[in-house]
């Protein structure tokens, strides 16, 4: 009993500490990346290469004055950032960072919430993500906030549909909803060099999912919720100091969690990167460590992709955005699903 409790606590702490610890780094990468793409210097004063800048920012957030406007609805105003952060963290519980391994005389599943429906729960938790935003917009009692929240919410739900169709297609293709089985199906190589990743089987589904992640986490080119030229800052307009920081953290953690799901379905999750098998052959004991490293490298690439897109593409217009979601991506997702099913059916004949 005690052992089990310790195991749960350890897992929880590790799974929470990894993304939260990486957050300052990601923010720094984002700012330096922006500077790199715009040919300017970016933050480079605090520490070597400005690496301590995010920590300084955190300290600043903590010592900032808490502006608590008079016209807000106090309870929900305080609760909204907390709900946003907690809901963003929840999907992380279902994501395994390595294959189950033997240690201390027992099998350890390296995920907090072990269930064969894990992937459903992860999506369900990320579907709750709009509550924090909607609540913030309503509690702020401000027209800009309200409009931003409504926009964000409508956009998130619209793109969730096409995202779900791509998930259905992948689950149909793998014939399982167990994340470990899904990843096991993606280990190995075709023709000796091409990794058996889902993205090569289902490029359309991968594209839909990728667009869905951008829309769900409100990142450019889909950050209509905080389009500063139209509605100033959207749903977090009335927020300051740590409350604002919590929204910021929630956005990044949501991004990390959705990227991890994307990688699980399309890039082999924690399966080893090409070339790492050589190391494992020499030292099998390193398997779990290398798996975690592969996952982190893959997520890092995704994050860099997010930054890259953010500073490359301009923002959409709102009607174009909704048209894209409902009139392009959703039929594309449905067509992709039908074609997949027909191909699988006729191949089995």
């Amino acid at each position, binding site marked *: 009993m005690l052992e089990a409790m310790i195991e*749960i606590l350890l897992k*929880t*702490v590790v*799974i*929470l500490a990894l993304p*939260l610890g990486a957050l300052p780094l990601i923010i720094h990468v984002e700012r330096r990346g922006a500077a790199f793409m715009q040919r300017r210097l970016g933050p480079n004063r605090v520490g070597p290469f400005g690496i301590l800048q995010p920590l300084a920012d955190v300290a600043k*957030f*903590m*010592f*900032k*004055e*808490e*502006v*608590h*406007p*008079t016209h807000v609805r106090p309870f929900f105003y*305080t609760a909204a*950032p*907390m709900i946003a*952060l*907690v809901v963003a*963290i*929840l999907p992380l*519980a279902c994501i395994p960072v390595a294959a189950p391994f033997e240690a201390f005389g027992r099998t350890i599943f390296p995920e907090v*919430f*072990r*269930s064969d429906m894990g992937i459903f729960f992860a999506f369900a938790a990320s579907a709750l993500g709009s509550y924090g935003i909607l609540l913030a917009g309503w509690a*702020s*009692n*401000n*027209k*800009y*906030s*309200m*409009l931003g929240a409504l926009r964000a*919410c*409508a956009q998130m*739900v619209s793109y969730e*549909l096409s995202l*779900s169709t791509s998930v*259905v*297609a992948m*689950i149909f293709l793998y*014939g399982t909803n167990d994340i470990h089985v899904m990843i096991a199906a993606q280990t190995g190589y075709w023709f000796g060099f091409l990794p058996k990743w889902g993205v090569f089987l289902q490029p359309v589904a991968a594209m839909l999912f990728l667009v869905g992640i951008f829309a769900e986490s409100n990142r450019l080119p889909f950050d209509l919720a905080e389009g500063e030229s139209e509605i100033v800052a959207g749903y977090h*307009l*009335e927020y300051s*100091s*740590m409350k604002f*920081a*919590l929204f910021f953290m929630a956005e990044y953690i949501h991004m990390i969690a959705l990227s991890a799901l994307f990688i699980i379905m399309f890039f082999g999750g924690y399966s080893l990167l090409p070339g790492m098998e050589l190391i494992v052959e020499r030292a099998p004991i390193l398997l779990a460590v290398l798996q975690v490293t592969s996952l982190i490298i893959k997520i890092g690439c995704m994050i860099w992709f997010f930054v890259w897109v953010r500073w490359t593409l301009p923002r959409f217009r709102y009607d174009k955005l*909704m*048209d894209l979601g*409902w009139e392009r991506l*959703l*039929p594309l997702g*449905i067509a992709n*699903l*039908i074609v997949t099913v027909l191909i699988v*059916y006729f191949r*089995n004949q």
Partner: protein
Amino acid sequence: MEFASFIVFFIIACTLSAVLLGISSLLGQKRKIVREMDIYESGVNPVGSATRQYDIKFYLTAILFLLFDVEIVFLLPWALAYKESSNHDFMLAGFIFFMVIMLVGYIFVINSKALKWEK
């Protein structure tokens, strides 16, 4: 067991966000300036209340999302059952019927221009 781990995770996540908020309200500077507490409306005096009626399109989007989401979520058991089913033809026929009905609904939605934002 899994239930307990989920609860522990949830509680730790809640505590984390509460602690972060608590730290800031403890350490933060405290001033009381009335202008600062006012509603933000680009520096001009606020006009009307924020809880006015917004566009019906937002609402229609949500309602159509609900109905399509139900359909897509119930495709998931189908996708999982297909591989284990003995009668693939039957399953495929069911899927085609399902999809045809869904597409009829979808075409109705697009045709009615209920989700067209520009007038």
